[in-house]
């Protein structure tokens, strides 16, 4: 029987990034989907040959422009582990604060894109308007909207005054209240339920079988959150990983919406618990060249990221490898796209919150 073939991507407005799928349709049901990526591969891992380990963090930040803070942090944490550098306490708390704010930023961005993909323009605009407020916080505290370059091996480059931190908490809580209304729309609007509820269902077993990570796994009821392991100061804050059980697109939206509130709470906790005062040490500079290897895991907005760093005592690292959450979630996406409707394809692709740039490096 004849089938319709839709060449989906590399240029496609649903996703700003080039993801390529050959969709084979009957009516509008996707009977097969052949994926490929590679349109954005730069060869970033090879940059260790050219860039000294002290500067490699700036390259790592540019793995992805959305979670650039986390990538920079991940790189620095890895090097700190190899070189046995203790990070000053206030710097550790600042990292947590920035990390959680960037999670809020990323989720808001994603919620907007998701809303746009299913044609809900108001939500798109409102999410992005709120996101601009987060970017203002970033710009004020780090100097950059997108690329912050505030992480150093052994600490952070800049301090944020206590007064400013208090103001940020106030601002975030206000944002949280405003977001509550938006979240209500996402969770309850019948037209959104029609598009998301029961679409792209990934059962908990499937999520484990395809090794899904982050909100993707948590929306299927799999409790996994790298922050739970308590590293980097997360053992000093209270939080429960957000999970949902439905495993459909709506559940993935809900998980991220609840994580926005959770992250705001974490920022407040961090500000309360961090040592106060001006002029505290922020950085312990490492000495010499690194030797050894390490695996570092962080919970990014999109899920668990894993860095492998191997150093051989020269200024250049021997190997730097980042396994990003999207890399781990693509098999789940391919699994879900098969058998869905053409109209669901954008939703399914977007609910894994793909970052092709991360994936291909």
């Amino acid at each position, binding site marked *: 029987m004849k089938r319709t073939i839709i060449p989906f991507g590399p240029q496609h407005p649903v996703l700003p990034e080039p993801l390529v799928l050959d969709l084979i349709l009957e009516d509008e049901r996707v009977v097969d989907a052949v994926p490929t990526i590679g349109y954005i*591969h730069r060869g970033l891992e090879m940059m260790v040959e050219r860039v000294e380990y002290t500067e490699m963090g700036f390259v790592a930040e540019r793995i992805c422009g959305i979670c650039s803070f986390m990538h920079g942090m991940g790189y620095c944490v890895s090097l700190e582990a190899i070189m046995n550098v203790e990070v000053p306490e206030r710097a550790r708390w600042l990292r947590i604060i920035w990390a959680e704010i960037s999670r809020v930023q990323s989720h808001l961005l994603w919620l907007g894109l998701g809303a746009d993909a299913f044609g809900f323009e108001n939500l798109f605009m409102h999410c992005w308007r709120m996101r601009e407020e987060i970017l203002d916080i970033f710009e004020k505290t780090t100097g950059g909207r997108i690329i912050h370059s505030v992480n150093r091996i052994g600490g952070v480059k800049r301090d944020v005054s206590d007064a400013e931190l208090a103001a940020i908490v106030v601002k975030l809580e206000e944002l949280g209240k405003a977001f509550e209304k938006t979240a209500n729309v996402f969770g309850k609007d019948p037209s959104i339920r029609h598009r998301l509820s029961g679409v792209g269902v990934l059962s908990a077993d499937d999520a484990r079988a395809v090794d899904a990570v982050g909100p993707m796994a948590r929306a299927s009821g799999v409790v996994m959150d790298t922050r739970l392991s308590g590293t980097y100061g997360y053992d000093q804050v209270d939080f429960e990983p957000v999970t949902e059980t439905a495993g459909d697109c709506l559940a993935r939206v809900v998980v991220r919406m609840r994580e926005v509130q959770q992250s705001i709470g974490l920022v407040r906790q961090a500000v309360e618990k961090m040592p106060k005062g001006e002029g505290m040490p922020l950085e312990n500079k490492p000495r010499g060249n690194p*030797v050894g290897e390490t695996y570092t895991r962080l919970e990014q907005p999109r899920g668990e990221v894993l860095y492998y760093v191997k150093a051989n005592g020269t200024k250049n690292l021997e190997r730097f490898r980042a396994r990003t959450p999207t890399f781990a979630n693509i098999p789940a996406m391919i699994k879900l796209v098969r058998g869905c409707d053409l109209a669901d394809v954008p939703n399914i692709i977007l609910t894994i919150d793909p970052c092709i740039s991360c994936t291909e490096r």
Partner: protein
Amino acid sequence: MDREAFLARVGEYHKEGRRLALINVTTLVPAAAPAHGAKPEAAATEASVGETAAPDQFEITWVFENDKDATLEKIREQVGPADIIPSISEFFGAAFLYENEIHELFGLNVEGINLDLQGQLYKTATKVPFSHAAVKARLEALAAKTAAAAEAKATTEAKA
């Protein structure tokens, strides 16, 4: 590598409910190869990991993660460029991306991938950019360039 034992171990990890966290390959370039700004420090040379490397080998590591206690289990092998590596996509469906990637970037032959993209994943400009030949060529070019730059700098300084 012992294929049977390897697959048995992977199967065990799969049964235990571990997740595949990473398949990583490192191109082992002998320390003698010129590296950018290569001034190995005394302390570092003793513990250098690269020393154990046989020439033209790859170090391949499969990393499995346990959700419950967040531990990482690793299987590490050294393989030559001609060796055939068994695919673990039979156990861990998500392995196909890693395996396609190491085939394309490192030139390793992985056998039995459940979704074989046949070298169409990245289609890089430099074919097999992390093969020993490619890495060495890059490093040598870099060293030559650095040397030339240093020489030029030295001559200009001398002139000044």
